[in-house]
């Protein structure tokens, strides 16, 4: 309990400092710290999957994206605020009332109101083809959301490619970095593979694994590999959409076999989920890399 209170207090503090920092680098740094604290909070809340996703994607990759952007943002306008005192007072009042409404509403909801969907999940877990509840929700019970979520990544990639960004100048060769990459990329690869495999019965899964592989890609980019240069190649494009495409094909395909959309045949559910996760991981990793490259972080 004390730990929770401390954690909550430090979350608020880092968020505050990050949001009102005057220096972009400091702001992003604090934001990453906030993300890591948040991952801790998730762990405290018994949500290891989320903790991993938050650490990897929320704090890690987002942090990397923002860090790159922060280097271009080091101008005076960074701490510019709305000048009108009227407006500022209005916004402050708005934020205050928003907070109180949300907080009060949440406070009034503190008593449990029935079990929710959780018992249903545990009851049907054995039929889902996986043993880990969160994975069963993501890849089976609410697989539709996950399909669309991968779609969101794909659309983000499409939109970014449509921007036709100028290519970043190549990085200089850095022997230290190259050495680090040589060590880290295989390790990240192995860890990602493990997470993907673990997802079926314990915390882990496609997104976390994809994040790790994405991190490996980011390291490669840091070492001078230009991903955007390949964006026109069909192979690269295929990797980008293969996750969504496969998922969609399976989801629609099963419906031609007399099932509902996305309804896996019970006997094949486990293996179908595994293969979907595998290709999804590849696509997620490639997409995350593209996102990173496009945010301008790759540029020196």
């Amino acid at each position, binding site marked *: 309990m004390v730990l929770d209170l401390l954690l909550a207090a430090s979350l608020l503090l880092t968020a505050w400092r990050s949001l009102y920092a005057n220096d972009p680098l400091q702001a992003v740094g604090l934001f990453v710290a906030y993300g890591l604290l948040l991952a801790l909070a998730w762990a405290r809340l018994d949500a290891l999957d989320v903790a991993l996703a938050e650490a990897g994607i929320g704090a890690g990759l987002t942090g990397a994206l923002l860090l790159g952007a922060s280097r271009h943002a080091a101008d005076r306008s960074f701490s510019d605020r709305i000048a009108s005192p009227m407006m500022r007072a209005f916004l402050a009042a708005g934020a205050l009332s928003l907070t109180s*409404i*949300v907080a*009060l*509403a*949440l406070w*009034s*909801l503190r008593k449990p*109101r*029935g*079990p*929710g*969907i959780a018992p*249903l*999940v545990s009851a*049907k877990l054995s039929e889902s083809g996986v043993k880990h509840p969160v994975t069963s929700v993501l890849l*089976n*019970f*609410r*697989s*539709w*959301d996950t399909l*669309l*979520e991968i*779609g*969101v990544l*794909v*659309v*983000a990639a*499409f*939109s*970014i*490619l*449509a*921007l*036709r960004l100028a290519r970043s100048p190549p990085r200089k060769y850095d022997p230290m970095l190259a050495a680090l990459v040589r060590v880290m990329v295989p390790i990240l690869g192995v860890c990602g593979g493990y997470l993907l495999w673990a997802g079926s019965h314990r915390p882990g899964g496609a997104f976390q694994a994809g994040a790790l592989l994405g991190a490996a890609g980011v390291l490669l980019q840091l070492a001078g590999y230009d991903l955007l240069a390949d964006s026109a190649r*069909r192979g690269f*494009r*295929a990797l980008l*959409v293969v996750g*969504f*495409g496969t998922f*969609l094909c399976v*989801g*629609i395909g099963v*419906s*031609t076999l007399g*099932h*509902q*959309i*996305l*309804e*896996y045949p019970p006997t094949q559910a486990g293996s179908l989920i595994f293969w979907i996760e595998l290709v999804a991981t590849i696509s997620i990793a490639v997409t995350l890399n593209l996102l990173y490259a496009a945010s301008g972080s790759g540029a020196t």
Partner: protein
Amino acid sequence: MSGALPILIGGPFAAAMVSFLFTGAIGRALSVLLATASAVAALATSIEVMRSGVQIHALAGWGAPLGIELRIDGLAMLMLLLTAGISLAVTTFAAGYLKGDAQPHFWPLWYFLWGALNTVFLVSDIFSLYVCLELITLAAVGGTALSGDRIALSASLRYLMSAIMGSLAYLLGVAMIYAQVGTLDLTQLSGRLGSSWSSGAALSLVTAGLAMKTALFPLHFWLPAAHSLAPAPISAALSAMVVKASFYVLLRFWFQLSEPTSNQLAAHLLGALGMAAVLWGSVQAALQERLKLVVAYSTVAQIGYLFFIFPLFGGALAAGRSEWAQEAWKGGIILILAHAVAKSAMFLVSGALLQTFGSDRISDLKGAAVRAPLTLAAWGIAGISLIGLPPSGGFIAKWLLLTTAIRQEYWLYVAVLLLGGLLASVYVFRVLWHSFLTPEEMPSVSRIPGSMSISILALTVVLLLMGLRPAIPLEFTLIGIPLPAGDLR
């Protein structure tokens, strides 16, 4: 359940993949084929709804609340049909309109947008709706930025920021609703939210977020720039469908989740903002110099009318007159349909004029009545619907809203309904005035491809048909709508 549904859902997404991977002629043809299949499937699904009522499809075979359900009632069916129709028109138009290096990027984004729109109208799960709306947002922002000039890019960034802020407010509301009821399924939620402090807060957050995405005055600030600077086919989709998607979700929340009678004050607040939107948007539209900005501000105004449905509906129920509520409901739905068709036609017309005359300044349109008579006739017909003159879908919508407002003696709404129509006629006819002017020398024009004319023509024909036989969509607006009034079937 219909075998058409998988095609309806999968078609546009598959088309997006294909057009992304294969940019050649074969890829183009294949993707058009896939997307058209989806439109046909939408028709097939609709026929099924007409024949046998609400269609429910349990995704992954689980059913609510464990899984996610697709639920197609009358409203969803009309929206799906609308999406299919307008998307076909936009696709046809875009084939002739787009040129240059933006073109290969357009198609994947566009098909994705189409597919995402379908999902919003199908899904009956409040979190899934969040993902669908985000999918729409990202595709729409990417499409808006396509033209690549600086102002368009800034507009898309602002659009993205506003949309995400709206989504997050929505998400927070969803969290509270889940905390309170323990399910995410819209049908199961209906009637179970009660009127507690927390449900009020949740609904307010959801409403505020969706109002932001729908660009209700004064949260419309992002819309005119984004809608006017996007390439014409995207503009058409944005104004016709994308803002309607979030409004559709808002309708679901207000009429399916909460008791419309219990929050009449909030409904009047929305109505008041709607009135402000009508007046502000129309006046602004009348003042603009660029054709597409006129159309974009007109969207701000027309969205205002949509929000009249909340006070008119709730007031009717509070008065115990569910037949009035039905009329308000129908009026709102027809307005969505009519505005979507009219507005997409208008944006496509703007695009066609831009290409014909090389400018979308209204003052450069002199002689257009002679040089591009059919395009301008389409503008006129779409304008007639926006003004609310017969024979058009807009007239029927306005009539239904007007009579409901008079019945409840909401004179302010009556006044704004009438005044808004007059203001609309100013901006509609201002364009025609300029085009009828005979310039000293006729402007040089470039011919537009036939596909562009065909799509514009098709939309105007639909618009007129809606005015002549509005009974057809009206019949379907009530199928399976679980409105709180018991006697609404």
